[in-house]
């Protein structure tokens, strides 16, 4: 088994801290629920791998990875890329909606003001 008790405790505390932080942000309406799901999942993964670092070796061996710790790095990078892409897709959708709303607002504001020539 890899990782000392102190390191495990730090990683577990970090994971729990991230999870609690996310719940706090949801509670204060700073983070929308669906985004919080991702971050709570990340914090759960940090807690799990922090307390049981042997899981990485166990999974790596079964997947035939010669150096199992790199598996965690690769998976984390891939998940970050997916997160960034979905974030950009979401921003694109929102930008489109924002433009549409701004256009509607400009038109309706003019019509409500009733100063059409």
């Amino acid at each position, binding site marked *: 088994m890899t990782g000392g008790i102190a390191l495990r405790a730090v990683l577990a505390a970090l994971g729990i801290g991230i999870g609690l932080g996310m719940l706090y942000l949801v509670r204060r309406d700073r983070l929308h629920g669906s985004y919080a799901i991702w971050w709570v999942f990340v914090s759960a993964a940090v807690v799990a791998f922090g307390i049981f670092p042997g899981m990485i070796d166990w999974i790596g061996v079964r997947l035939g990875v010669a150096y199992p710790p790199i598996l965690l790095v690769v998976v984390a990078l891939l998940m970050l890329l997916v997160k960034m892409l979905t974030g950009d897709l979401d921003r694109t959708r929102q930008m*489109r909606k924002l*433009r*549409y709303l701004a256009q509607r607002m*400009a*038109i309706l504001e*003019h019509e409500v003001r009733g100063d059409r*020539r």
Partner: protein
Amino acid sequence: MNRTADTNLPRLAIVLPAYNEAGNIGAVLERLRACSSAEAIVVDDHSDDATAAIAREAGATVLSMPFRFGAWTATQTGLRYAYRHGYDLVVTMDADGQHDPAQIGTLMAPIVDGTAEVVIGACVARASGLRRFAWRYLRLLSGLEIVDLTSGFRAYSRRAIAVAASWAATSFDYQDLGLLLLMRRKRLRVVERDVTMSARLDGKSRVFSSWFAVAHYMAFSSILGASKRGRNLEEAGS
């Protein structure tokens, strides 16, 4: 084409996107009034100056954007307004005095006689060597056969207004490549007519304000042109 009962002419609106054009908009609208009785729709792209007030004073319909979104979003706002209010034909032109209102008739003619849905006022003479190179590159990439890709002096038929005002066109940052590819996909006939253009009164392009802006435009347009080149044609309105 729907026509007004009294004149048998299509209902025409002129859309002018404007950002900080207080120094020009009054004169542009005055020249416009001398050439056309069409409704002038000035879309104020959240200017810092008195563009909106001057335009309103000059008798234009003024739509004020709550934030600055850029020339295309402002133009599309005007097109949406025109579509909503039943206009048959829209001419878009810059608010900086570059486009001559006396040439609106030249742009309208192919739409009125039913030979085109979009007419681009082309002025190759205004382009620098670098701009011509960029046009050629983008033509090659997109497969479009339009010479003046970036001209904002255009006329749109009712069907073309519907496409330009659609949700699909909302995400474009510029009015050229993406929109023209969308028009092609909807099988709308796009033609060019030669027009003359004056130099900008302040001598500076709003869209190409810096080398970074040019690089962003080229990268954006390259991706757009390459990704949409092979899209299947659809019927207008689909």
